[in-house]
Structures are given as structure tokens and as C-alpha cells.
């Protein structure tokens, strides 16, 4: 069976190479026979990779430890749920998983477009196939998941217990879905460049794909944060680790693209910029993979596969070179006729939003590679940590937050003072009132707390900006169609999915900003050794050590649980149960955090140690507003789904816009 998997991988590689060569020859030599021969190769490649993946999954299911990979990441007792996640738990499997997604995406793009856009379609397939070939080469010749062990052991080593967590099962696939998804926009953008089809058809296609990938990447990041928070037991959710940055940077660039592309649709401007952004997004995903697989940059995640890292570095340079050459060659075709009219306009707010997003991306990039640069230039390794990222990204982030409010309300082309006064009077007043109410409540003793205060004021301002858009739209419908408010609001959103879906995403982002600000500035923690009956006090909570228990959960898992009564305002509100789990075959116990989450704050308890006399050492955090992050994520998900929903009205609107564009500029709103 494993031979079939291995053979399928080879066959996939051969087919992909054949497909690439015959597509190129068919297009160059204008040969229809070759074109038909090459046609369907993307599907066949997907079939082969699918078979190969199925074989590997089967090996996990039947505990076939003759495969080194299965032995390293699974054992007999592992739950089926986690056996599936072991598939992408390691280097080799994750590459196979990547390839599986890539070929699946390619196949979807194939069926979407094979009857349309025949001029760019073969080129896009060529780009996809080339990237697939790179991964298949790695899988076949460098990191073969079907590598055998000469003497099949009886049991495997098992999956790291820290990875045996619900979030860890869905986090990597979600992230990969996002990462890999950016390949398709890249392929179609390249194809558009090669074939000089630079009207907005590639934009329409790539926008959808970018949105889908953006969605998965965004969710993947949040799932990862959630996992780090509940599983790693350090009280935080984000550490600016290179591996996290690697997933964060493409998200920022893709966000910039999703915004600036609207200017191109409306005004036929910024073509070079948009093209560069979409290519850069893909480059960032490969760069991220390079970071995580090279071990070149010290990260708390060890990925010591140096050789693989250099393959990715080579591939990265190749991709950058191709992108740069193509853009420079087509520069004259990407020139736009229009130009920006005024600083105070929707267009320029998009421009500034782009600069700020890329600013955050660049700062993150610079901080990530700084150790390498300093070592190359000065001979010493110098690192920067979270203080650097916070110091740089917080001010930029706040400017960005303000723009979230300003952007959607400011008029296109040129805003007049009257327009500004009319739209921003209410939000500014609301922000000021909110600030005045918060002033006596929130502490303002440090720089971080001042920044948080500013963030809250901005959040209120932005929230009122966005909600007033919903309100105005719904009120207009109410008066026009005599509908009740809720119905009017629903129809308004449904008839303008892209616009109001986008606003919903903004609301989610505002929640996340508020959550980050609150949890970063006001978090407190303390550690203490407690004998039975002793108490620990933190903020307005009192924790009393009641009991310590040991439970033999399964043959391989023992749980040590501490029971702590939590009192607030003299009343026992619940019993906190932090625990340590001890797995057979693993060298270290795993802490299970006890989390009590409310919209206001989280009480986060870690069992650090326990003794024979039943005394325990615990670490307790009070993290305000962390749940706002997860709620914000949920709102973003809903908003993105609405924005992505197929929309016939949107198509009509676009056609009208294109007609208008041909005549003249669209007049400024209001």
C-alpha cells in the first residue's frame, strides 16, 4: 500500500512536468493537439496527490509504524481525531498536505476558468504547475513521507501532548488554506502580466480568491492565538515570534491589496501598486515558509531542517526575480490615466491605509530578519523582541484604526468641509464623550495605559462612524419603502453584501483592537505557593486552595487537578481546576490552564507545581478583555462570509461603473 503512495507522488511529479511542458509548447507553437493533451493534467496531478495522501492517512489509521513518519508522530493509543492531525503534525506530512491543498485549489481554478478567459488560463495553469513541481520535487527527493524504517517498531513515539488540543487540530489546516490560497491570485496575476491582459478581469478573479485566502489566514492566526492562550500557559496569545510574524505579514499585505483594489475598480488607478501587492503577498507566504523551515532565525518554535529552508530560499529568490522582471517589462501597460485629486478624499484614505498596513508589515519583517542583518553587517547577533514590535506597531496601528472610521465616510474624489462636518460631527462628539466617561475609570499611569486610553477613544469614534453608516442606510430604506427598521437593515446588508460585509469586518477589527489594548495594558499576574486552605488575592478575586486530586484517566494519561474556590465580593463564584497531565512516554507533564472568561476579564490559573503535602504553586493572571479578540474574530468571519457571498447585484453595479468610467470620472458623492 505504501508503495502506491510513493509511486503516486512520482507519477504526480511526472504528470505535472509533462503538463507544464506541453502547455508551454502548445501556447508557443499554437498546437491544439498538445493543448488537449496538456488539458486535465492539473486534475490528474491532484488525483495522484490525493491518492498519496489517502495512503498516508491510512497508515496513520492502521498504525503502520514501518513508516518513519507515522512512527514519529503517532502511537497506538492516540485518539483517531489526533491521528488525523498527526498527518500535518510534522515536516513531511505538512508538505504533503500543502501540496494536496495546492493541487486541490488548482483543480477548482481549472474548472472555474477552463471555458472562460482562454487567453490567460493556460498561463495561470503553468504557474500553478510550476509551483506544484517545486513541492513535488521536495516530497519525492528530500522529505519523502513514505520513508521506511528497516525494523518496524511495535509502537510509535506519539504526538506531543501540547499538540493534542482541539485548536491545534484546526489551526494548521486553516492557516495552510490561507497560505496556499494566495497561489491562485499570484498565478492569475502572473498570467495577466505575461499575456498583457491587464484590464480588470484578473482583478475580479483574484479578489475573490484573495478574500477567501485572507479569511482563512485571518482565522488561522486567531486559532493559533487561541491555542497559545489556552494551551501554552504563559497568559498571553501573541509573542511576536518569527513564526507568528510569518503568518501575520501576508495577512497585512493581502489586506492592503483588498483595499487598494477598490481604487483600481473605481478609478482605474494604482495598477502597478495592486499588481505588486498581490505578487508580494505570495512572496510573503513563501518567505514565511522559509523562516519556519530554515532554523535560520531563532524562534521558540524549533524547525531544524536547514536544508529544506535553503530550497525555499532559492525558490523565494526565483519568485521575486520573476515577479520583478514581469512588472518592469509591463510597466508601460500598467500606467493609469487618472490621478488623485485631493488629500481629503476616499482615494487618498485608501492610499494612506495601504502605506500604514505595509508599514506594519515592513516593521514586522525588519524585526524578524534583524538578527541576520546585524550579524552580516556588524558581526554580532542583535535581536528585537515584543517591546520593539509594540513600540513601532502600536502608533501605526492607531493611525490605521482612525482610518477605519474615516475611510468609509469621507467622500470620493474631494471632500468638502461641509461633508466632513456633516459626517464626522457625531462620531467625534461620541469619541469625546466616551473619553470623558472613561477618564475617571481607567488608570493612566504609564505610557501603555495612555495608549490604551487613546485606543478606546478611537474605538468609540470608529464604531460610531461605522454604525452611523448602517443607520443612515437603513433609515433611507425605511422611509423609501416603508419597511420596519430591522427588515430594512437586513435588506440593506443583503443587497450590498460587499460593502456592509466589509463594514462588519471593520467592527470585528475594532473589537480586536479594543481587546488587545485592554489585555496588554491592564493585565496583572502573581505567583504563590499555597498550602491547603491558604488563599491568594488578585484584583478583586480571592482563590482558596481546597484540594488536590490525581486521576488515572486512561492507561497513558494521569491528571493531577487542583481545586481552588474563587471568591469575588465575598461570594464563591466558581471552582477553578487547573491541572497537570502526565502522559506515558512523554518526558514532561503538560499544564492545563483553568480559564474563567467573561466579557470583562479572564481569570487564568496555571498549576505550576504540586507536592506530597498537597501544597501547590500556582500562577494566576487577570487578563481584561481577551474575549473581545475571539468575539471580534467571529464578527470578522460573519462579515467576510457576507462579503464573499455571490452577488448578482454587484456584477450589475460593476458593469455600470465601467460604463461610467469610460465617460468620465464618477462624480464625488454628496
Amino acid at each position, binding site marked *: 500500500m505504501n508503495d502506491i503512495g510513493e509511486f503516486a507522488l512520482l507519477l504526480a511529479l511526472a504528470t505535472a512536468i509533462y503538463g507544464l511542458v506541453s502547455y508551454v509548447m502548445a501556447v508557443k507553437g499554437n498546437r491544439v493537439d498538445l493543448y488537449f493533451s496538456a488539458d486535465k493534467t492539473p486534475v490528474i496531478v491532484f488525483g495522484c496527490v490525493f491518492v498519496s495522501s489517502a495512503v498516508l492517512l491510512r497508515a496513520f489509521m492502521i498504525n503502520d509504524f514501518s513508516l518513519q513518519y507515522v512512527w514519529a*508522530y503517532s502511537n497506538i493509543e492516540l485518539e483517531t481525531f489526533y491521528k488525523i492531525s498527526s498527518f500535518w503534525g510534522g515536516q513531511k506530512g505538512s508538505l504533503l498536505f500543502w501540496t494536496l491543498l495546492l493541487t486541490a485549489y488548482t483543480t477548482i481554478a481549472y474548472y472555474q476558468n477552463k471555458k472562460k478567459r482562454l487567453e490567460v488560463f493556460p498561463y495561470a495553469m503553468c504557474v500553478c504547475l510550476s509551483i506544484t513541481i517545486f513541492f513535488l520535487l521536495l516530497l519525492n527527493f528530500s522529505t519523502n513521507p513514505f520513508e521506511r524504517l528497516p525494523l518496524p517498531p511495535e509502537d510509535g513515539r506519539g504526538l506531543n501532548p501540547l499538540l493534542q488540543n482541539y485548536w491545534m487540530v484546526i489551526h494548521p489546516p486553516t492557516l495552510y488554506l490561507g497560505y496556499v490560497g494566495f497561489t491562485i491570485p499570484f498565478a492569475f496575476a502572473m498570467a495577466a502580466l505575461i499575456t498583457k491582459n491587464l484590464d480588470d478581469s484578473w482583478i475580479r478573479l483574484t479578489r475573490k480568491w484573495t478574500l477567501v485566502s485572507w479569511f482563512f489566514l485571518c482565522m488561522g492566526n486567531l486559532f493559533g492565538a487561541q491555542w497559545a492562550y489556552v494551551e501554552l500557559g504563559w497568559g498571553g496569545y501573541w509573542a511576536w515570534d518569527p513564526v507568528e510574524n510569518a503568518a501575520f505579514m501576508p495577512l497585512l499585505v493581502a489586506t492592503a491589496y483588498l483595499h487598494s483594489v477598490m481604487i483600481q475598480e473605481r478609478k482605474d488607478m494604482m495598477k502597478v501598486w495592486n499588481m505588486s501587492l498581490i505578487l508580494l503577498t505570495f512572496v510573503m507566504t513563501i518567505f514565511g515558509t522559509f523562516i519556519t523551515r530554515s532554523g535560520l532565525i531563532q524562534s521558540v518554535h524549533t524547525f531544524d531542517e536547514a536544508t529544506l529552508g535553503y530550497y525555499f530560499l532559492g525558490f523565494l529568490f526565483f519568485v521575486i526575480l520573476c515577479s520583478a522582471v514581469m512588472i518592469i517589462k509591463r510597466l508601460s501597460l500598467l500606467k493609469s490615466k487618472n490621478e488623485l485629486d485631493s488629500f481629503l478624499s476616499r482615494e487618498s484614505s485608501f492610499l494612506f491605509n495601504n502605506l500604514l498596513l505595509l508599514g506594519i508589515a515592513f516593521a514586522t519583517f525588519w524585526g524578524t530578519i534583524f538578527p541576520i542583518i546585524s550579524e552580516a553587517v556588524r558581526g554580532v547577533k542583535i535581536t528585537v523582541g515584543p517591546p520593539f514590535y509594540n513600540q513601532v506597531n502600536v502608533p501605526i496601528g492607531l493611525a490605521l484604526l482612525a482610518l477605519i472610521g474615516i475611510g468609509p465616510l469621507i467622500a470620493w474624489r474631494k471632500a468638502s468641509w461641509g461633508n466632513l462636518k456633516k459626517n464626522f460631527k457625531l462620531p467625534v462628539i461620541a469619541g469625546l464623550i466616551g473619553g470623558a466617561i472613561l477618564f475617571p475609570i481607567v488608570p493612566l499611569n504609564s505610557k501603555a495605559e495612555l495608549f490604551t486610553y487613546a485606543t478606546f477613544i478611537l474605538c468609540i469614534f470608529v464604531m460610531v462612524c461605522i454604525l452611523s453608516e448602517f443607520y443612515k442606510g437603513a433609515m433611507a430604506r425605511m422611509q423609501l419603502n416603508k419597511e420596519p427598521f430591522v427588515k430594512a437593515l437586513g435588506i440593506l446588508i443583503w443587497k450590498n453584501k460587499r460593502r456592509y460585509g466589509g463594514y462588519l469586518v471593520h467592527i470585528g477589527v475594532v473589537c480586536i483592537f479594543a481587546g488587545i489594548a485592554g489585555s496588554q495594558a491592564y493585565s496583572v499576574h502573581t505567583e504563590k505557593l499555597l498550602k491547603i486552605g491558604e488563599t491568594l488575592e488578585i484584583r478583586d478575586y480571592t482563590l482558596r486552595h481546597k484540594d488536590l486530586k490525581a486521576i488515572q484517566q486512561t492507561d497513558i494519561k494521569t491528571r493531577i*487537578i487542583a481545586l481552588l474556590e474563587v471568591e469575588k465580593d465575598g461570594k464563591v463564584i466558581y471552582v477553578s481546576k487547573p491541572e497537570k497531565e502526565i502522559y506515558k512516554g512523554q518526558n514532561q507533564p503538560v499544564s*492545563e490552564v483553568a480559564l474563567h472568561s467573561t466579557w470583562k476579564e479572564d481569570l487564568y490559573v496555571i498549576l505550576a507545581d504540586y507536592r506530597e503535602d498537597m501544597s501547590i504553586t500556582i500562577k494566576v493572571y487577570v487578563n481584561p478583555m481577551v474575549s473581545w479578540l475571539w468575539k471580534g474574530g467571529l464578527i470578522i468571519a460573519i462579515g467576510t462570509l457576507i462579503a464573499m457571498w455571490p452577488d448578482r447585484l454587484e456584477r450589475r453595479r460593476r458593469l455600470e461603473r465601467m460604463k461610467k468610467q469610460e465617460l468620465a470620472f464618477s462624480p464625488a458623492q454628496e
Partner: protein
Amino acid sequence: MTTKKIKFTLGAFLIVGSIGYLISTSISQTSMYFVTVAELTDQGLSRYTSELKVKGNVVKGSIIRDPNDYLEVDFAIADKESKGNNLKVHFKGVTPDMFQDDGEVVVEGVIKNGVFHANTLLTSCPSKYEAEKQAGKSHPGSVTPYELKKPDLKDLGTGPKATI
């Protein structure tokens, strides 16, 4: 170039410039030297007075916890290859789950009287890719069973805890 264009170029430069300024000042304010144990001991411990970051592996058997206070930990780290030069480290706080003999750690802190006082202790992550690396070294199946340092606790058997 029209005046409009110049205005926009200036505006963009202003933003890019201030971001650049922010990055460069923040780097000089927050950066830390990142050295290995060998580099540190070769150059002399007294050379570094500011906060720095050191990477090394925990020397086997060197972890000593204060019997009265679990949070006070003393241990030594050394480079993975040359086990010669040790660096004594003191840390106060809850150690991560992965903190153990031979484990790779990154510590941040300052050197006082030849001892590294760490304020941050990071262990290599629950690495997904780590097992790969070890696979070559240990013989399949020879993973030593972990001996529970289980205290003699009464087993009261509460139901499974709700997942958080």
C-alpha cells in the same frame, strides 16, 4: 510633475519617513545582544553589562529548585556541541512545561557576579518538527518510560473536566 503629484509624494514620504524613524529609534532602544554560551564565556562575563539574550541547552542534572519555594530555580546552560563552558542561571517564576534536562532554552536577563539572572525563560516550542530531528538519534521504541513523581494522592475520580 504637477503640484498635486508633488503634494502626494510629500505626504507619502512623510508617512514612510515617520515609520522609518519609528523603526530605527525603536530598534536602538529595544535591541538585545543574542549570544551563545561559548561566545559569552570566551569574551568574559563582565563584558556585557546590558540586558542580553543567551541560547543554550540545560546541563543534565543541573536544575535545582529551592525546596521552600518552587519558583526559585538555579540551573546551568551550555552549548549543545561543546559541553565545556557552563553558564549559571538563576530564574524566578513558573518554568514552562518543556523546561527539562538537555532541553534547549533561551534566556533573557543580565549578568550579576558571574550568574545570569534571567527575567524571561523560553523553551523551544512544542515543536512539531522536533521529533524528526531526534528520530535519527534514539532507537525506535527506546523512549524511556516517564516515572511519575506522583504524590500519594487519593483518587477521588471526578468526571472529565470540561474543555476550555
